[in-house]
C-alpha cells in the first residue's frame, strides 16, 4: 500500500486526500491549524449562488471523519528528503513520515491591506476588507458605523493588492470582482436604504453565472459601478471617509463621502506556500505561486518528480476550481504511482 503525504488541510488538501483514499492509498494530511478547511473558515457565503460555507465545510468534515485517512493537526513540515525513490518527511511534531508521493496543497493568503497605506486600513475606523465584511454578513453581524447608525453610503474597492505594481502583485486574483458583487448584493439585502458603489478597473466575470449576478446587482439591487481606481481615502471629522478616484468613463476626477469602505483584497502565495516551496525544493513563479511544469497538461506537476500540486498554491482559484484541481491532482498521483 502506497503512502501519500499531503501538506495542507484546506479544501484542496482534504479533497485530494479523500480521492486518493478512495483509490485505495494510505494518506496523511499535515495541517498547521487546529482544524481543517483552511481559508474556508473565514468565509460565510459563496458566490455566485450564496451557498452557505458550512455546507461545503461539513462535507469536508465528513470526509475527514468517515474516510480512512489521518490528519496531523497543528503540525508543519520541517524537512523533506528524497531517499531511494521515497520521501522521508520530518514534522514539527517530531514525527518521521515515509511517503511514496507528496502533494503540496498549502493554498494562499489574503493580501495584507495595510500595505496599501493610502487606503488607511487599520488606521481609519470604517475601512474594512472583504474578509472582515464576510464575518459581518453573518445573521448576527453588526454593520453599524459611527454613532451606531447603519452606513448610508458604502463603497467597494476592487483590485486591492492585485494588478498593482505598488503592492508588488501584477496578477489578477480572479475571485475579488465576483466577491464584491456578491457582498454588495448581501449588503443591499441588509441595508435597503444605503447607496452602494463599486470602484473597479475591469469587471472580470469569468465564471458560470457571474455575469448574470453582476447584471442582477445593477438591475435588481441598484448597485452602482464606477470605473476608476481609488487613489486615496481620508477620514473626516465625523469618521466618514473622503475617497478620491477618477471617473475614467467621464474622464473627470471624482470625490465622494462614504460611511464604510470595503477593500476587496486579493490572494497571495502565503508564507505556507513559500516555505513549502523551499522545503520541497520546487520553484515559484514571479507571482510567488508554485510553478507547474505545463500549464495545460501538467497543471498538477511540480518540478520535482513525485511532488504534486493541488489548489490555490499554484494560482488564485475559486472554491470550485480548487475542488476540480484537487481531484485532478489525486488522479495524477494515482496514475503516477501505478506507472512507478
Amino acid at each position, binding site marked *: 500500500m502506497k503512502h501519500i503525504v499531503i501538506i495542507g488541510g484546506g479544501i484542496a488538501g482534504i479533497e485530494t486526500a479523500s480521492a486518493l483514499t478512495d483509490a485505495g492509498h494510505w494518506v496523511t494530511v499535515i495541517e498547521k491549524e487546529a482544524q481543517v478547511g483552511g481559508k474556508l473558515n473565514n468565509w460565510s457565503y459563496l458566490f455566485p449562488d450564496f451557498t452557505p460555507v458550512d455546507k461545503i465545510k461539513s462535507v469536508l468534515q465528513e470526509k475527514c471523519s468517515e474516510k480512512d485517512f489521518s490528519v496531523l493537526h497543528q503540525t508543519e513540515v520541517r524537512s523533506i528528503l528524497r531517499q531511494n525513490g521515497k520521501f522521508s518527511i520530518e514534522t514539527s511534531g517530531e514525527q518521521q513520515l515515509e511517503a511514496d508521493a507528496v502533494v503540496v496543497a498549502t493554498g494562499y493568503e489574503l493580501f495584507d491591506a495595510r500595505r496599501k497605506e493610502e487606503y488607511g486600513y487599520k488606521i481609519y475606523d470604517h475601512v474594512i476588507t472583504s474578509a472582515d465584511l464576510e464575518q459581518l454578513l453573518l445573521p448576527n453581524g453588526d454593520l453599524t458605523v459611527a454613532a451606531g447608525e447603519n452606513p448610508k453610503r458604502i463603497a467597494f474597492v476592487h483590485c486591492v493588492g492585485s494588478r498593482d505594481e505598488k503592492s508588488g502583485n501584477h496578477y489578477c486574483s480572479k475571485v475579488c470582482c465576483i466577491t464584491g458583487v456578491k457582498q454588495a448584493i448581501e449588503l443591499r439585502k441588509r441595508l435597503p436604504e444605503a447607496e452602494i458603489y463599486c470602484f473597479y478597473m475591469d469587471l472580470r466575470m469569468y465564471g458560470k453565472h457571474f455575469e448574470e449576478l453582476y*447584471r442582477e446587482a*445593477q*438591475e435588481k439591487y*441598484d448597485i*452602482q459601478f464606477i*470605473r476608476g481606481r481609488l487613489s486615496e481615502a481620508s477620514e473626516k471629522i465625523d469618521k466618514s471617509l473622503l475617497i478620491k478616484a477618477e*471617473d475614467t*468613463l*467621464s474622464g*473627470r*476626477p*471624482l*470625490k*465622494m*463621502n462614504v460611511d464604510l469602505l470595503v477593500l476587496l483584497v486579493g490572494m497571495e502565495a502565503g508564507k505556507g506556500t513559500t516555505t513549502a516551496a523551499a522545503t520541497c525544493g520546487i520553484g515559484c513563479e514571479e507571482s510567488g505561486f508554485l510553478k507547474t511544469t505545463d500549464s495545460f497538461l501538467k497543471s498538477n506537476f511540480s518540478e520535482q518528480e513525485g511532488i504534486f500540486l493541488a489548489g490555490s498554491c499554484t494560482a488564485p482559484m475559486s472554491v470550485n476550481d480548487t475542488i476540480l484541481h484537487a481531484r485532478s491532482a489525486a488522479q495524477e498521483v494515482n496514475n503516477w504511482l501505478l506507472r512507478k
Partner: protein
Amino acid sequence: MKNFGYTVIKQRTIDYDQFDGRLLNEVLEMEPSFKVCLSCGGCTATCSAGDLVSFNVRRMNLLLRRGQTVELESEIKKCMLCGKCMLVCPRGINLRNVIMLVKKSILKYKPVNS
C-alpha cells in the same frame, strides 16, 4: 475686494456629495432597463447623430449619474431618435424612452443658473 490678477480656480472634480439625484431617479423609475448600462459604447459607435456632430450617447448615462444636468441638456438635444442604438445595445436598454424622459423631465430639474 482686491484683484491680484489671479483667482481661485473652480475644481473639475465631480463632487458626489453635491449630486442632485432627482432627475436620475425619475428616469430610472420610468425606465429601469437603463440601470444595466455597461458603458460599452456600442450606442455611440452606431449613432446617426454622432456621425454629424460630437454626440456621445454612452456619456448621457454618466452625465445623468453624476448630476451634470446642464451638459446633459445640451447633449440630449442632438439625438435624432433614429433608434439604431437600441438595435445594437447588448443589454436591450430602451434608450429612446430614456432620451424622451430626460428631454421632458430635465425642464423640471434644470438648475436656474443655466
